[in-house]
């Protein structure tokens, strides 16, 4: 990770909110595209060696992004994001849920609301994500699922990343 870029990760257990702030070395229009265009999202949204694959993307208020996370052993997890607010190059809000391949929401798995804001910082962009869970139990469920994915990232993944970090 580039130590020059701001990175905050705050978990508010009282209110079930995770706030992630990260600076990126690119202007707002490009970073906005990276968060809202499926062909770019597919390139970074899944933690390696998992891959994100978009089935359908309709980035507008009321529209959805349906995608799969594919694991190295053929695992697949489907998710949907439903967009409720869009202010171009400033902010969007979406509700995230786990689904099947047709986009039917699994009500037993956690849902979360994502508020993503973009602000210029010189030539860079500061992105703030506020991820709100209805309950701490759902936050825990997500962390557990993330933990599973985290384990799947092998050490070879780190080896692959190191040369790119040195650039």
């Amino acid at each position, binding site marked *: *990770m*580039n130590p020059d*870029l701001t*990175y905050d*990760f705050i*978990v508010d*257990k*009282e209110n079930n909110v*995770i706030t*992630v702030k*990260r600076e*990126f*070395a*690119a202007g707002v229009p*490009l*970073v906005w*595209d*990276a968060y809202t265009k499926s062909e*770019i999202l597919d*390139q*970074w*949204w*899944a*933690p*390696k060696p998992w891959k994100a694959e978009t089935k359908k993307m309709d980035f507008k208020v009321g529209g959805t992004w349906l995608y799969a996370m594919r694991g190295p052993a053929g695992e697949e997890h489907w998710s949907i994001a439903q967009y409720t607010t869009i202010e171009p190059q400033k902010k969007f809000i979406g509700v995230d849920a786990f689904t099947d391949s047709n986009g039917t929401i699994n009500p037993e798995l956690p849902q979360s609301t994502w508020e993503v804001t973009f602000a210029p910082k010189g030539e860079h962009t500061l992105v703030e994500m506020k991820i709100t869970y209805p*309950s*701490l*139990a759902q*936050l*825990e469920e*997500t*962390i*557990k699922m*993330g*933990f599973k*994915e*985290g384990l799947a*990232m092998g050490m070879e*993944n780190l080896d692959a*990343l190191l040369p*790119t*970090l040195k*650039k």
Partner: protein
Amino acid sequence: MRRDVFQAIADPTRRAIILLIALQAMTPNALAAHFDTSRQAVSKHLRILTECDLLKQKQTGREIYYELNGTKMKEIDKWIEQFKKIWDNRFTQLDDVLLTLKNKKK
């Protein structure tokens, strides 16, 4: 009965109890004085927190004091650390993607 540590902190009263006990070990009576609920209700919360290993009981003379079990609290932080690592990984990928896109535009 074994309970999940996250179930324990899902309740606002139990979170308040944890915060109070984090400051100093307390007896059930002293704790109950901080809440409008009945002594029984506070006892029930204490029982759940103890079953989750978040609290430990300590006998001092006739009184039972409750104190925090720090090891268990760390478990929660460990989960969060894993979640953070996943985002580290994603963001590093996004850094690379942005760099590629920027170079293409030039």
